[in-house]
């Protein structure tokens, strides 16, 4: 039961998130909302929560009307929907009993309806049949035959194809608005309908066939100049497209989850609508003939006998039918905003990964061939030239393969517009969002992970950074605050900057707080920059006092963690009174890291460059032992405990004397460690691979293929640091290793050292 409740709550949370994201004109999110609501209705029913089920159902109806653009997809309406979601959340907490909430819910829904009506001229009551239907309603009785479910492959192909066709229809319709009368475009709209009709007929999908067919007939009239391609036809084509899309998507659900999910949509409303528009054309072209007979004869000509619904002859008088449809006040049609630039194809991610792997292998093989002793002894200028050429081609190939996984960050950025607008509204602040570098490309896999931290930081900048308008005025700043969101590439990294011209961080308050918490000492000389970056520390975040005073630092540790997970870094620079710049630095791709290859005995390991502070050969006077067993090095005034990698990984090193080896000082989650290795071999960009079935190995993040074709292990520094800390408690494990000097790190000392240093 509790589990189910959690599920419902999660659904509601998802819905709340969606409603946050939704932007007027962007109906794709609303579509997702519909799916969620449907699932919620079902779950609420199964869970014995009739009230919630009822509310969810009426919520779903309203959202559906939004999809059909019967209601304005305006900011106000979305706000009301958002409120209703919170009512449902509350209801959920109160155990399906919240009469007051219910009242609010109903009032909100009513407000939405009123709002939409007022923005739309009242339609002529007699023009009912010319009105677009409310969206397809689901017929309660199941269809007689579901034999189209039998050939899954064919059906799947049909769904894919249909969705693609519908997309192209939409694009073409929009193009037609700019070039009315272009016969080529009309043909481009006509053909996909024809195809959909044909295939759906073959699959015995009568509903789809009927709808596609009647629309095709209408378009045929347009093609033959029987009627003009006016706004009405465009409207109907778009709506029918939406309806077909809905049906196709339902078919897919039915395929994935079983036949019982199939909905037999009642499309008669659409068909009638299409026909009435068609009939009206006949009316205007032939004023003598009675409209009804025209329509009927048209129907008779059309082979719609497969339709399960008998098409009733339109009862509306000719005058009413030919009245222009009063749809003008009703927002733009749900047309996709995306303009197609160049042709694209969809490729399976696995195939793409395969390509990237193969190319990586090619590069390695090339190096191996080139470095082959016999080959390199050939002193032939032609061979050298050819090698040079080959190298260029493979590099190009690798670059192209990698770039296929990259997408512009634009979409993520665009979601911020909405966020800033909402936040300004909520907080009563006025902020402009300036975006730069939306074209900057980012690894597809990172897009989702970067979204949350970005939202968090944007929120921070608007909520806490930008001051209230009156205060800004008093300070002589423009009333409108400016939040800039920038993205660019720099030195193999992608940089995202969020800059505001608000109040900036209160560095002195942060300092006081840090001293209070024992993070730094009164006597420590810490730079303002380092102090400011303390806002990213856990614990600092939840401190309400500092939030109230300085106005920053709400959950910034979460941001830091999320970014570090992507192997990136965050930083803040701030000037009191002038504003702050938060910077996120991310690797361009998750698949490749920049690493230093180190050698321990015969093994080679890769240390991610981003974590490395410095490396050096220790001298005896900076080497300290703690309590005779813990080892530490004095690095720039701090004691850093030593990790003997050979000991941790149990391999045979070249030397056990720390003064003859190299230490690499690394930083992970604020902790520093000096990793002792035999030798640094060089720097290389490596492709990260998983170790087949082996996973969760302490201190190993993955593997990669080195220049000579062998596998090298990539160190997981966070794991290494953590395992090392555990070893302090239970150091019996490493006693077995040959060396007597057990490596019990001086954790106490480490913690006493100022954590902000470095």
């Amino acid at each position, binding site marked *: 039961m509790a589990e189910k409740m959690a599920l419902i709550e999660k659904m509601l949370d998802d819905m709340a998130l969606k409603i946050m994201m939704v932007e007027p004109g962007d109906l794709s999110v609303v579509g997702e909302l519909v799916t969620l609501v449907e699932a919620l209705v079902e779950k609420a029913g199964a869970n014995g929560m009739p009230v919630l089920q009822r509310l969810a159902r009426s919520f779903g109806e309203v959202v559906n009307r939004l999809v059909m653009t019967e209601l304005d997809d305006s900011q106000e309406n979305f706000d009301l929907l958002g409120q209703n979601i919170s009512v449902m959340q509350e209801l959920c907490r109160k155990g399906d009993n919240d009469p007051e909430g219910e009242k609010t819910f109903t009032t909100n829904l009513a407000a939405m309806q009123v709002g939409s009506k007022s923005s739309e001229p009242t339609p002529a009551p007699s023009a009912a049949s010319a009105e677009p239907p409310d969206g397809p309603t689901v017929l309660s009785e199941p269809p007689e035959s579901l034999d189209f479910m039998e050939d899954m492959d064919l059906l799947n192909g049909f769904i894919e194809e249909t969705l693609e066709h519908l997309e192209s229809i939409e694009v073409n319709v929009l193009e037609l608005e700019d070039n009315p009368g272009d016969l080529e475009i009309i043909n481009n709209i006509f053909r996909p309908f024809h195809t959909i009709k044909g295939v759906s007929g073959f699959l015995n999908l009568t509903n789809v066939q009927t709808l596609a067919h009647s629309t095709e007939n209408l378009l045929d009239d347009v093609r033959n100049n029987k009627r003009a391609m006016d706004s009405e036809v465009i409207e109907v084509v778009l709506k029918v497209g939406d309806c077909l899309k809905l049906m196709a998507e339902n078919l897919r659900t039915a395929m994935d989850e079983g036949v019982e999910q199939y909905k037999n949509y009642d499309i008669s409303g659409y068909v009638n609508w299409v026909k009435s528009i068609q009939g009206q054309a006949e009316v205007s072209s032939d004023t003598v003939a009675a409209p009804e007979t025209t329509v009927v004869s048209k129907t008779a000509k059309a082979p719609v006998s497969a339709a399960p619904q008998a098409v009733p002859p339109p009862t509306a008088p000719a005058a009413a039918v030919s009245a222009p449809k009063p749809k003008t006040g009703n927002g733009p049609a749900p047309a996709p905003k995306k303009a197609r630039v160049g042709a694209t194809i969809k490729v399976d991610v696995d195939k793409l990964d395969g390509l990237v792997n*193969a190319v990586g292998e090619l590069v390695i093989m090339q190096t191996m061939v080139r470095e082959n002793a016999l080959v390199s002894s050939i002193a032939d200028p032609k061979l050298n030239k050819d090698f040079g050429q080959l190298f260029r081609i493979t590099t190009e190939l690798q670059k192209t393969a990698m770039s296929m996984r990259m997408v512009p960050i634009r979409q993520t950025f665009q979601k911020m517009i909405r966020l800033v607008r909402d936040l300004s509204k909520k907080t009563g602040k006025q902020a402009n969002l300036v975006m730069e570098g939306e074209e900057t490309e980012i690894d597809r896999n990172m897009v989702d992970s970067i979204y949350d931290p970005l939202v968090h930081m944007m929120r921070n900048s608007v909520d806490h950074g930008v001051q209230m308008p009156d205060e800004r005025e008093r300070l002589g700043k423009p009333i409108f605050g400016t939040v800039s969101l920038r993205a660019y590439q720099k030195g193999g990294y992608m940089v995202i900057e969020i800059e505001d011209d608000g109040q900036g961080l209160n560095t002195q308050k942060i300092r006081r707080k840090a001293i209070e918490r024992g993070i730094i000492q009164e006597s420590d000389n810490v730079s303002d920059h380092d102090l400011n970056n303390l806002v990213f520390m856990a614990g600092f975040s939840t401190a309400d006092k500092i939030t109230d005073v300085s106005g920053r630092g709400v959950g910034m540790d979460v941001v830091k963690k999320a970014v570090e997970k992507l192997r990136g870094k965050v930083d803040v620079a701030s000037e009191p009174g002038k504003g702050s710049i938060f910077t996120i630095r991310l690797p361009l791709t998750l698949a490749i890291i920049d690493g230093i290859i180190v050698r321990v005995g015969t093994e080679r390991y890769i240390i991610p460059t981003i974590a490395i502070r410095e490396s050096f050969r220790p001298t005896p006077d900076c080497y300290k032992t703690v309590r005779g067993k813990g080892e530490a090095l004095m690095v720039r005034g701090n004691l850093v405990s030593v990790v003997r990698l050979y000991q941790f990984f149990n*391999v045979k090193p070249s030397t056990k004397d720390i003064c003859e080896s190299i230490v690499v000082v690394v930083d992970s989650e604020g902790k520093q460690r000096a990793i002792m290795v035999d030798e640094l071999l060089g720097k290389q960009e490596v492709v990260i691979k998983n170790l*087949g079935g*082996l996973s969760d190995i302490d201190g190993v993040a993955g*593997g990669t293929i080195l220049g000579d074709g062998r596998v090298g292990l990539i160190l997981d520094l966070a794991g290494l640091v953590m395992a090392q800390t555990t070893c302090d408690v239970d150091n019996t494990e490493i006693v077995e290793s040959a060396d007597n000097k057990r490596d019990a790190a001086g954790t106490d000392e480490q913690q006493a050292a100022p954590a902000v240093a470095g």
Partner: protein
Amino acid sequence: MAAEVAEKSVDSVGGDLAGKYLTFNLGSEEYGVDIMKVREIIGVMEITAVPHTPEYIKGVINLRGRVIPVLDLRLSFGLEPREYDDRTCIIVVEVVSGNGNIMIGMLVDSVSEVLNIEGDNIEPPPDFGTAAETESILGMGKVKEEVKILLDVDRVVGRGVMEHLEQVQ
């Protein structure tokens, strides 16, 4: 109980198991694995050791851009270790594990041949008293005068990796 199971499966074992097997040697014993599980056979190459893994997991290799673990079947079966020579082979098999199919290399002394073993010639594994020893054996294939131990690769290799994962957790 064990005898009962064995008796019951006498008939069924043979029929289901009939097919082609790749046979290989470990010391004086001869084993067979279902040819459909085998992806390829490669010579011994340099293996990168992976720390904190059981002894029989020798490490990982680069199989045309893919990193796959390799385990020493001798060590896995508790036999004496042996120096690798030019007869030593890695049989790469694809097995079912918790996270989908994975490829794993098995180090064996030498690979002999592919045999077609008919159902009539396959017997259930003998009862050695403890269930554990025979659980990874599908059956005993009789070919001429010799007996091949037919291995259930999913169990043998899957178990190796599984055990390791459990150890870590």
